[in-house]
């Protein structure tokens, strides 16, 4: 009986030792958010799934990206005094936002969604955005009860210094979506160097 006790205690000790070593090693190393590879950049625009017909305007309430386990409520965003897009409050890392004065997701044109990659406490809603692949699915719940289904065309990284405004925010002839978060390298002095931008277009609705 005692021998079993000893064996059990030895096993517990060994497991605790391994787990502790792994936790400490993993917990004290840095966790840079995933960044897209060059393979996810824009390809032939004719490739990919055909566009679905545009939906009537309706504000969005929720965004879901199953591949990176995102299921987040959306808040309305405006512009800052310098003309850049506002961001959701830093205290709500689970919240994403959409550009309220622009196109609603599913409507013809370019709808814009943004969310934090992290805040001071750790990873936030779009931490995994850079791991999304071409062909991935993004769903947006709209207030009229419909769900706009988008397919990812490209995942790009742009430096803040040379940000392609027209490409990211410019008008589109079909219903398109951009999902934006921080990325592109990090420096202690200036923070993240740019943005990860997901380009998607409407391929269905339900």
């Amino acid at each position, binding site marked *: 009986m*005692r021998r079993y006790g000893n064996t059990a205690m030895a096993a517990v000790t060994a497991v605790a030792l391994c787990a502790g070593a792994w936790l*400490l090693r993993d*917990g004290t190393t840095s966790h840079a958010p995933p960044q897209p590879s060059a393979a996810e950049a824009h390809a032939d625009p004719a490739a990919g799934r055909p566009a679905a017909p545009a939906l009537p305007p309706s504000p969005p309430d929720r965004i879901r990206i199953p591949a990176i386990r995102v299921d987040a409520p959306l808040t309305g965003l405006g512009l800052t005094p310098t003309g*850049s897009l506002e961001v959701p409050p830093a205290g709500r890392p689970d919240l994403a936002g959409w550009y309220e004065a622009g196109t609603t997701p599913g409507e013809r044109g370019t709808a814009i969604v943004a969310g934090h990659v992290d805040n001071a406490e750790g990873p*936030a809603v779009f931490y995994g955005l850079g791991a999304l692949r071409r062909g991935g699915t993004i769903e947006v719940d709209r207030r009229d*009860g419909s769900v706009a289904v988008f397919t990812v065309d490209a995942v790009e990284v742009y430096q803040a210094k040379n940000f392609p405004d027209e490409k990211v*925010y410019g008008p589109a002839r079909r219903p398109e979506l951009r999902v934006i978060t921080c990325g592109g390298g990090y420096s202690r002095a200036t923070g993240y160097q740019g943005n990860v931008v997901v380009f998607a277009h409407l391929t269905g609705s339900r």
Partner: protein
Amino acid sequence: MRRIARLLTGTALAVAAAALTAAPAHGGGTGSLDVYPSSVVPGGSVSVNTTACGADGAAAGDASAVGAGQFTLAPSSHEGNAIGQFRVPPSAQPGTYEIVARCSGGGREVRGDLVVTLTSVRPAHPRGSVKTGVGGALGPDPVQTAAGVAALAVAAAGGTWLLHRRARGDGI
């Protein structure tokens, strides 16, 4: 046709149009009628919603001011919103029109403004990059570190106990 208020003349229209965006006519919350987009060209479709009628509350919409007649606001799955849509007739004249919704049952009435312009107003798009991170994911993870320390403490205690048993010759 009951058109309300301000029929804008050409110049005033241009000024108003420049100032307008597709943002909601009212900032959400209860007791108002949200109109999307708040500015539309003749022939365009408009979506309105309100939380004023409570959960599962339907409403009767009236867009006859802009010539679109009556429509229904049906309850939606979303947070007690009643939602309806109508299309502005191609013959609609520029101006500001009041859209009305009456809750069925209670009879409560909410209103929102719709602006019809001849040229579509494209709101300014954002410029530049977006500040959506501060690097908080990059540092050590305090929870994971604490868990690691705790696990090592358990291992140390277990090891000490085993050594103690062994020293006493309990056979291990």
